[in-house]
């Protein structure tokens, strides 16, 4: 189970990086970065999983006394919650910059933006 989730995450990271490095359109690059970001999150959550255990929420299913033996690691989950929110912020920023670039040049083709190329 963990291996499947982890492999999916790694494949998503590679797919995202491939898309970001080969596409010419800035919007497609942004989408590729989101895909890679999702892959990283999946890998992080997969690392926190322990076989046969349940979510770190204490209720009738998981009494307080048995918590240590019944729940998965809560730390990666808290970490991924943070990572998702920051990832959303980064995506929004990239979209805003893409809009600004389009306003300047009237195109979203990354090869037309060569001011900083050497």
């Amino acid at each position, binding site marked *: 189970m963990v291996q499947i989730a982890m492999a999916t995450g790694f494949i998503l990271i590679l797919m995202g990086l*491939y898309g970001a490095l*080969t596409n010419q359109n800035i919007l497609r690059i942004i989408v590729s970065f989101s895909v890679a970001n999702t892959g990283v999150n999946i890998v992080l959550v997969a690392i926190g999983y322990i076989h046969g255990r349940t979510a*770190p929420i204490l209720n009738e299913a998981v009494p307080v006394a048995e918590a240590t033996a019944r729940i998965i690691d809560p*730390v990666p989950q808290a970490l991924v919650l943070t990572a998702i929110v920051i990832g959303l912020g980064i995506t929004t920023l990239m979209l805003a910059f893409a809009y600004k670039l389009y306003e300047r040049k009237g195109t979203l083709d990354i090869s037309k933006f060569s001011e900083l190329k050497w």
Partner: protein
Amino acid sequence: MIKRAVVILFLLGLGSLFIGLMQGYIPDTELNQTGRYYAEHTAQDIGAANIVTAIIVTYRGLDTIGEVTVLFLTAAIVGMLLSRGNHKGKSLQRELPQSGELLTTGSYLLVPLILLLGAYVFINGHLTPGGGFQGGAIVASAILLMLLTDPLRHFSHQLITVIESVSGLLFVSIGVLGIFYAGGFLDNRILPLGEFGSLFSAGAIPIIYSLIGLKVGAEFSSMLVNLSETEDS
């Protein structure tokens, strides 16, 4: 062609690194030390049923303040970048097609329900999966639905700003109260812990998480509104 070959070579290298990582990975069978500490101490120290919430709001509350600040910064930068300036009038707006009966009627039905669900998710953040960030995102999705229905709809920037600043300010002041009335900054025990598993439990966590929910919802909404108001061609 060479460029693509370099890219594929780079990804092959990265992929073999990943395969090495996966082969060397041995899944845990026991909680590690940090996880065990949280599992054993959350119930009596914090009183929150959702351990992830206890970590985010109380154990690592300072990091959450940082996270909310990053989000605020993003919203501010998006607002600054996309502010229209004075050089462009509002006369450029093109005619938009009608949004359709289904979408309009559906949004009348769904927007209040989505707002209610968002509020439910962030108020119950200490008991069920969910919390301020998720609830805030749900609230913002109601705003998105309203924007889809009527792209020219005007949302009050001032109202969004006021909600955001007031909830941020209250969040930090509750944190400061923790220094005086409990163990430290953002300590949730300034209020009684209450009965474990009920709505009014876990001290200040429901209040703090509701404030985070309002703040995140306002920030996401301001990003959405700013992005939608750029449509001027």
